[in-house]
């Protein structure tokens, strides 16, 4: 590994630690407080643990699951110290995340066995789709790939301009048909343009939409189909962007977007805030979709590949 690479990886870890700082302190401090002065796992400890998990947006069902598993591992009313307990709880959560059998990315990467590789980005309003696309384009451009962004959000005011500015910042290519164009047509033509121009990676932005609006979900299916029509098998990935501050509604978002577009990966944004990001655990528990990226800020570099172990370590260490 080159010096530069090493340096970069180090920097990445610091970023993640920094971003998860608030999450970390919140979770761990609370846990320490709960455990302090206690040396058995009793009812009141479990109640407190339940509170911590729920306040991290882990959700009721998954919280109960975690507690049940912890109980199964720790003999009730037996003496236990905080380090042991931390380890056990950490393992319970990592195991839970591991159960959905998704493999963590090691670095920003995509399948290069076909060309172009097409990613469709979807999600409810304001979660960070466009920003995440900018950040992804930056990572892949930096790695020497020829990247093209397609502006299929033709609805929200200045959405096309926003994506265009990101492409300029990154220095990658950009395709649009302006505002109010048919998004399926934009997607189709973007892929066509990318094929003609020899792009390695195409990322298509779509308008934010609430999963309850059937006509908009149908529109999304249509966008997806039109991409497939231009390039059979594409989009190769459908990335659902979730906001870490979202509560239990994120579960329904994951369900409905998957129904409409067969989501293949998740990005969890705004983890630099005080939201605990516990939805990640709740969603991993209920879906088989891997979390691939986490957003830790508003600028180009503030995107990381998701790593289960690091994520949970970040919560506890």
């Amino acid at each position, binding site marked *: 590994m080159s010096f530069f690479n090493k340096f970069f990886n180090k920097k990445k870890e610091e970023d993640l630690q920094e971003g998860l700082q608030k999450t970390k302190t919140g979770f761990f401090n609370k846990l320490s407080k709960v455990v302090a002065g206690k040396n058995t796992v009793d009812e009141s400890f479990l109640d407190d643990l339940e509170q911590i998990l729920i306040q991290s947006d882990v959700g009721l069902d998954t919280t109960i699951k975690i507690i049940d598993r912890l109980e199964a591992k720790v003999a009730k009313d037996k003496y236990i110290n905080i380090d042991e307990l931390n380890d056990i709880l950490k393992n319970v959560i990592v195991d839970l995340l591991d159960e959905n059998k998704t493999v963590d990315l090691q670095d920003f990467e995509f399948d290069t066995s076909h060309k172009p590789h097409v990613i469709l980005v979807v999600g409810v309003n304001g979660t960070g789709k466009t920003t995440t696309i900018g950040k992804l384009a930056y990572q892949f451009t930096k790695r020497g790939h020829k990247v093209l962004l397609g502006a299929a959000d033709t609805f929200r005011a200045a959405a096309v301009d*926003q994506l265009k500015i990101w492409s300029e910042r990154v220095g990658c290519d950009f395709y649009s048909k302006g505002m109010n164009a048919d998004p399926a047509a934009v997607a189709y033509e973007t892929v066509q343009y990318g094929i003609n121009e020899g792009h390695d990676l195409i990322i298509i932005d779509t308008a934010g939409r609430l999963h309850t609006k059937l006509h908009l979900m149908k529109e999304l299916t249509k966008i997806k189909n039109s991409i497939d029509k231009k390039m059979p098998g594409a989009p190769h990935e459908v990335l659902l962007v979730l906001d870490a501050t979202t*509560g239990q509604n994120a579960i329904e978002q994951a369900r409905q977007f998957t129904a409409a577009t067969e989501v293949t990966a998740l990005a969890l944004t705004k983890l630099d805030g005080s939201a605990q990001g516990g939805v990640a655990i709740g969603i991993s528990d209920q879906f088989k979709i891997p979390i691939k990226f986490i957003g830790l800020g508003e600028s180009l570099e503030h995107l990381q590949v998701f790593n289960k172990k690091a994520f949970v370590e970040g919560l506890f260490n």
Partner: protein
Amino acid sequence: MFDSLSEKLEGAFKNLKGHGKLTEINIATSIKEIRRALVGADVNYKIAKEFTDKIKDQALGSANVLKSVKPGELMVKIVMDEMTALMGGDAIGLNMTGKPTVILIAGLQGSGKTTFTGKIAKFLKNKKKKRVLVTACDVYRPAAIDQLTVLSEQVGVEIYKEPDNKNPVEIAQNAVVYAIEQKIDVVIVDTAGRLAVDEVMMNEIAAIKKGIDPQEVLFVVDAMTGQDAVNTAKVFNDRIDFDGVVLTKLDGDTRGGAALSVKYTVGKPIKFISTGEKMDQLDVFYPERMAQRILGMGDIVSFVERAQDQFDEVEAKKLEKKIKKNKFDFNDFLKQIDQIRRMGDLKSLMGMIPGMGKLTKNLDIDNNAFNKVEAIIQSMTPEERGRPELLNMSRKKRIARGCGHDIHQINMFIKQFDQMKKMMHMMSKGNNMQNMMRNLERMGGRPGMGR
């Protein structure tokens, strides 16, 4: 998805009925159910606990609950009333005493600030007949100024912007000066999204507030927010002491517990709700509806609204005529299916009708229920769709082949269709559809959900 809370509570009380007396334990069980409902709706855990403890005391104090035939219902009523009172209080409008009145908008990233700025500008211009200026103080997000420019054009108000100035405090102050010169009534200041944990940005918003001394500071919060709503609201309130809350994205299916959390934490009134991306999708806050929504209870009002939203008067008249003449055909049927579909997810629609939650709980209503019917109709020729009487055996056979269902299913469907047609024809002589819609309207609906 969520069976009505009162059913669960009835369940909690049922055990004891046989035993004669309702006890503290039963109340405790039902309190636990209520707490779960609240937490499931994203009400902050601590608040849910405090809130239900209070309810418990009330329930124990009221002999009525223990004597009541339906203690569960009574408990729900106590919860509803308490929650409504908590979230409601005196409805306070905007303080418009400034010359000009200055309104500052703040909140997390992507919560809907810029969209709301456009909406409130439109509202003040059209409904309150004010001269309005919107101000673009988000100097960070790509195309933030363009976004507000487009919205200001859409709603027809003036915009103040300084694309080359990176100092939002200055921009805001300059806007107010400009407004005074131009005799503008209201200045609305849109700001960048910021995290409560971002010291630099929180200092900035405090400085903007100090620099323009607004009459109204509004905190915009996404109704889908989870447990963190409490922290964020608290920090923003500590730093900028906002006057009111705007709850956005209520057009989705979030239960919206953040509304209770925020109100409970900072005690500031929820002044507006935002229910869509379009500029007229702005509304005042109804605490009772919100309480129902958080508790996952049937929300007949929303149901009616969604129905109305899809209701097209002209189409309905045409349809009525056709039914009266007994000319209802497969094309009309397809249109009806499409309308129901556009109202939203079938199961959640059913859940909105009080009492239906129970009925549909174990039923697997899937949104594809109509697919089969649609496939059958789509396999008909246009002529057949318009003239159902054409369908003879050979035509039915061809349709069966076309849609991949067997002939029995085709026959069954056509039989059901005929029955339905007959029934509608009969009904059309007595009542009429428009009356039906009018009745629904009287129940409290209001148009305007959409996109």
